[in-house]
């Protein structure tokens, strides 16, 4: 058995050992101080080049989110919501997407903490900055929507909505299209743990497992144990969200989404299974929420949750792949770049008021009635 197989087996076994009750704080969320210095050299399974790529994207994603938060605090945007704390899961996910348009490629029904996924797919940080500033050049909504509400039809990324959990409904439809048309394309849907209380989550489980009509959907729950201000353990009695998949015979796993390699291999295993078997798979990824729910709760750094980027950087340093200085330089590079982007975007015009009626219908411009 290879190391990878051993790891997969161990992670898989976690799912089938329900805990009697939810602990007050999951182990993955406990703050972890730098252990690398005193730990033995970290062993990676991924190649150094791949690790460096993932790290680069994680830093890019984090710096982008922190830039967006700064923009909010400097009144260069009305609202911020995003995904700092989910990079260790989201970057490997974005790198695993079969990117393109139409049912032969992967569809993405995402929630608003998914910048890491999109950056890993090749999205430009300035697009997010433009949406934050609601300028006319915002490529995702033309200045109409909140930050991190992307839409990229060319990559099958459906418009991200603020409505919690409805993406698990629309995922059914692209899943049906892909079930009918065959091929390798799959549907990816993600959302938080609190939203799984909505009936839409149950709809996705029911519809994706209709006998002989199973759907190729990767059902992801990023579990940060919060619903805005409400702790999950005050509302949910289930030991693991992923356990709900078992009632539908959906293969599922609960993983530490703060660990890059655990996420990477779990995502690859799930995607390989779906592409081949054309059946759903559920991943519950335990992640952190490093700046609270949104700007509505202050968007300040939370210090009592572990930082997946710090963890990864400790591992990279321990393994001798990157030095602290190299990583600090990278962060500074992105900080400078994105500050410049924000300055540039600040000078860009807002959408013209005359455009309010544009696109109510496909291809329509101006007032339509």
């Amino acid at each position, binding site marked *: 058995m290879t190391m990878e197989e051993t790891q997969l087996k161990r992670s898989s076994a976690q799912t089938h050992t329900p805990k009697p009750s939810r602990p007050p704080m999951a182990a993955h969320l406990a703050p972890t101080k730098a252990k690398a210095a005193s730990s033995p050299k970290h062993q990676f399974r991924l190649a150094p080049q791949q690790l460096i790529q993932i790290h680069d994207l994680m830093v890019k994603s984090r710096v982008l989110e922190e830039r967006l938060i700064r923009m909010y605090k400097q009144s260069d945007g009305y609202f911020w919501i995003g995904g700092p704390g989910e990079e260790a899961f989201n970057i490997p996910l974005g790198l695993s997407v079969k990117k393109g348009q139409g049912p032969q490629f992967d569809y993405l029904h995402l929630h608003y903490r998914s910048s890491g996924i999109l950056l890993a797919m090749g999205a430009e940080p300035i697009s997010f900055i433009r949406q934050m500033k609601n300028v006319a050049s915002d490529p995702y909504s033309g200045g109409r929507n909140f930050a991190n509400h992307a839409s990229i039809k060319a990559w099958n990324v459906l418009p991200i909505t603020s409505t919690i959990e409805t993406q698990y409904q629309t995922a059914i439809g692209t*899943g049906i299209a892909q079930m009918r048309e065959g091929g390798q394309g799959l549907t990816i849907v993600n959302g938080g743990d609190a939203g799984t209380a909505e009936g839409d989550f149950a709809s996705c489980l029911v519809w994706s497992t209709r006998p002989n009509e199973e759907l190729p959907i990767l059902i992801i729950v990023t579990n940060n144990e919060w619903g805005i201000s409400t702790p999950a353990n005050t509302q949910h009695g289930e030991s693991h969200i992923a356990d709900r998949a078992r009632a539908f015979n959906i293969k599922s796993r609960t993983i530490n989404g703060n660990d890059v390699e655990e996420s990477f291999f779990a995502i690859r295993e799930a995607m390989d299974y779906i592409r081949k078997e054309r059946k759903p798979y559920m991943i519950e990824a335990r992640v952190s929420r490093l700046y609270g729910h949104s700007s509505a709760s202050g968007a300040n750094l939370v210090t009592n949750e572990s930082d997946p980027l710090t963890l990864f950087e400790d591992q990279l340093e321990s393994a001798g792949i990157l030095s602290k200085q190299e990583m600090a330089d990278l962060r500074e590079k992105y900080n400078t770049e994105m500050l410049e982007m924000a300055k540039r975007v600040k000078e860009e015009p807002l959408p013209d008021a005359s455009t309010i009626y544009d696109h109510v219908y496909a291809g329509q411009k101006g007032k339509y009635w």
Partner: protein
Amino acid sequence: MANMAQAIRMALHYGEENLGLKEIFGEDVGPPLGGVFTVTQGLKTTWNSPLDERGIIGAAMGLGAAGRRCVAEVQFCDYIYNTIDLLKLAGMQSWASNGDWNMPMTVMTPVGSGIRGSIYHSHSFDATMTHIPGWKIVMPSNPLDAYGLMLACLKDPNPTMYLKPKALLRIRGQEKIPGEPDLTPEGEKQLKEMIDAPLGDRSKWKARWPQLEDYTVEIGKAAKVREGEHLTIVSYGRTLPLAVQAADQVAAEGISVEVIDMRTLWPYDWQMISESIRKTRRVIYVNEDTEVTNFGEHLVRRTVEELFYDLEARPKLLAGAFIPGIGLADTLEMASAPQLNHIVDAIREVAAERA
């Protein structure tokens, strides 16, 4: 002489064969039942869904996003209300993404009173639906329009809502759907034998479809079904044939009523409506949804704002009583939604008002 259910069925068949319609689904839509009103019998792409209206709308949205043309049915509009946020999202996709995405999909649902459906099978949905931007909304009042409006929906790149007036689904048309057998009792029997599923075991039954042809009613175009001089009635769906009957009835009293069938509620044919009102100078809007924040109130508002000095009488809205539902007893239903006598009375009242 197809009835409206047959007309919709034939339109869906035409869509399957010619317009890329690939999925027709909803609760009991597939075999063996073919829909609780038999609208989807014998079609080749129908299937039964879980009993989950939100899932039905969500699935339709995803199919639309994937460019896979679908018609999703919610069995009664009384059960569509728990999908409102999804309907809003569907109508919003093009606008919210600044034109990046569009969502071709059609939802059909039976609406209104007239079959003694009691509290949970008699609701209307036009007032609520016309409050959701981004959709095109149609509602036929006869089989030929039912056919032509469905084809229009299937050709449209936007979400389309097809409201089926359930009281009219068994009413036969006076105009021939292109390709259907002759409008004779023999033709009617022949069509029934071809496309109505038999009672009992249907497992071996297959529809034999007539050679249907394209006939599209342009969305946004109303129809003038009676010419008149003294007063205009604007209606749609179940109350439209009643308005025509009322017009015929008061003609003997010397009141000449023009009747407009809106056919599509959004976008709607304001040009035809406004020209008619300028001519007759009196107008009654008739529909059966509840009267408060009724779609007809919007039309009255526009009439007042744009045509005030053309009017010789106050514009009137005749609509359903503002009550939670329609009671089962005959007396209750007849008092809850506009009936023939209510329309006749309204015509007399508005016609008699002194300028």
